[in-house]
């Protein structure tokens, strides 16, 4: 029963994905990657929450709370919450950069703004590598969900099924499909999370019992010392990276700066699902016997408390979020490969290479998942370490005039290397998020080199206004709009 409902919802989502593209005449790359820069605020909202609330919300967060206590819960929720106000002010600049440079990917923006092909390639490679742990993150969650279907699948079979599901989505891909599928996914996800949370607190006998601190460590419900430092520095680092590293993809789809800003206002309200996830997680902490693999906490709670058909719905919500994010990520990867790595080869070859790279991405994520058990939120930290290396380049092109292109490349490469070293060697940083340290190295190089040997004068995005048509701000969809003007 669990598996039947799970696969029925997944099939329904594929129908929605195909329907979203049916009848669409515009089959251009601009439509495929950035929806022709036409999304209104409401569609932008669903695409954003569709990408943001991945399988980590249902599977990763409970795992983090169960194994790492309050610190993991607070930084996970805190960085997403802090990201929205930052995005409210910075995302319009990202969109404007996309318009100015007719960009559909981040490497497009960097390469054109700094007029450097080598920087474009470095950015593309860093982005592609940074997305591998993000893929792994989704695969771990999907493996947990598929394990919970009661089909007695081997780990290998689970990741293969997850990969096949993601590939099925790719066939119906284009950024418009995930935006509509995310409406279905979010409905199922919100319903699932609320039901599990409420049933958990009812079963425990109220909130006092759910959060009963008698038998648990103080670190489960309070913060101090290094965990507090880690929490605060992680919120700062990941909230900035959230829009500048992750979210340019959905920002580019917007039809205007107004749509970006107005859609951001209510995004924090979606986060009111998190209290229910905390309830389910603490039910596991205080009411259930030891759980061997923390990653399975949410599914274990669900299996213990809910009837089979409802377990199927919950599994579908989680699974859909993982598959949806995998497909959007694969879409971004395809875009980066074709536009930034091999832009000048014939289209058939582009498509072949793009498919190979996407397949490699899926295989790499799957192999890392099988290679060893990792706490999901640790893998999320690594993803942010790596994506955070795009932040100095973004801030430089938004606010500074004379930045050297090769300094941005050097900073990115050094920051990327520092991230991997810190993640693997785990030096004692007194609780400071390792990604913040790595990005500090990156900042030092970008701005240090540019101070000693300034680059040519370039108008930063904060000082650039796009040309308007008939009083409107919007440029032609996904068409060059380089003739802006500087505003002082």
């Amino acid at each position, binding site marked *: 029963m669990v598996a039947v409902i799970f696969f029925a919802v997944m099939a329904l989502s594929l129908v929605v994905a195909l329907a979203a593209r049916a009848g669409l005449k515009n089959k251009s790359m601009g439509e495929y990657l950035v929806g022709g820069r*036409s999304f209104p605020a409401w569609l932008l909202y669903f695409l954003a929450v569709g990408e943001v609330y991945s399988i980590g919300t249902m599977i990763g967060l409970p795992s983090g709370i169960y194994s790492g206590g309050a610190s993991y819960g607070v930084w996970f929720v*805190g960085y997403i*919450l802090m990201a929205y*106000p930052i995005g409210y002010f910075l995302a*319009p600049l990202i969109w404007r950069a996309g318009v100015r440079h007719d960009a559909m990917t981040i490497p497009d923006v960097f390469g054109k703004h700094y007029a450097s092909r080598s920087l474009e390639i470095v950015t593309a490679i860093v982005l592609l590598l940074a997305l591998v742990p993000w893929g792994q993150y989704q695969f771990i969650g999907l493996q947990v969900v598929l394990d919970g279907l009661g089909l007695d699948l081997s780990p290998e079979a689970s990741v293969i099924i997850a990969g096949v599901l993601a590939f099925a989505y790719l066939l119906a891909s284009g950024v418009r499909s995930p935006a509509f599928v995310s409406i279905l996914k979010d409905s199922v996800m919100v319903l699932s999370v609320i039901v599990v949370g409420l049933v958990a607190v009812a079963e425990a006998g109220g909130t006092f019992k759910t959060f009963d601190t008698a038998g648990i460590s103080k670190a489960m419900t309070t913060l101090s010392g290094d965990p507090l430092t880690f929490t605060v520095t992680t*919120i700062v680092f990941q909230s900035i990276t959230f829009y500048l590293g992750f979210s340019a993809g959905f920002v580019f789809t917007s039809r205007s700066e107004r749509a970006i800003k107005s859609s951001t206002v209510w995004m*924090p309200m979606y986060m009111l699902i998190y209290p229910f996830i905390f309830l389910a997680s603490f039910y596991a902490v205080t009411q259930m016997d030891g759980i061997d693999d923390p990653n399975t906490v949410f599914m274990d709670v669900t299996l213990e408390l809910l009837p089979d058909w409802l377990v199927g719905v919950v599994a579908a919500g989680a699974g859909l979020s993982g598959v949806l994010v995998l497909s959007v990520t694969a879409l971004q990867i395809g875009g980066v490969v074709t536009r930034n790595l091999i832009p000048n080869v014939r289209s058939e070859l582009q498509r072949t290479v793009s498919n190979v790279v996407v397949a490699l991405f899926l295989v790499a994520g799957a192999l890392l998942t099988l290679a060893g058990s990792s706490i999901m939120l640790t893998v999320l930290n690594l993803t942010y370490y790596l994506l955070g290396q795009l932040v100095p380049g973004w801030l430089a092109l938004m606010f500074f005039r004379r930045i050297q292109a090769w300094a941005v490349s050097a900073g990115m490469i050094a920051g990327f290397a520092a991230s991997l070293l810190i993640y693997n060697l785990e030096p004692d940083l007194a609780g400071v998020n390792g990604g913040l340290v790595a990005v500090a190295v990156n900042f030092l190089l970008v701005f240090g080199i540019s101070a000693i040997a300034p680059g040519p004068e370039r108008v930063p995005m904060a000082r650039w206004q796009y*040309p*308007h048509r008939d009083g409107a*701000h919007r440029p032609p969809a996904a068409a060059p709009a380089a003739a802006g003007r500087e505003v002082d």
Partner: protein
Amino acid sequence: MSTPTPHSTPGPAGASGGERTLADRRSLAIGLGVPMLMLLIVIPVLSDTDVHVAGVPLLFVLLFAAMPITSAALWVAWRLDAPRYEADLVDEAPHHDGEGER
């Protein structure tokens, strides 16, 4: 290269680099300042306490309260910013590409 034309309405100064107005500063102070205060000052300062509210640890109560507070702060910021984005409203209607072709 098309010839840039001047804006018929004041540009979105807070984001696009025009002169910073009082509304910009108030928008920034409320939209960014309030969530930062909540997440980076209030919660860390009160994070090491055994106080519970209706059975829920205070740390989590504050975290959950920060969600509607952040939306409220952004709503106020948007009330201040919206008049400077009125030109974008022209594009809220269906147009020739994207959805308009469906």
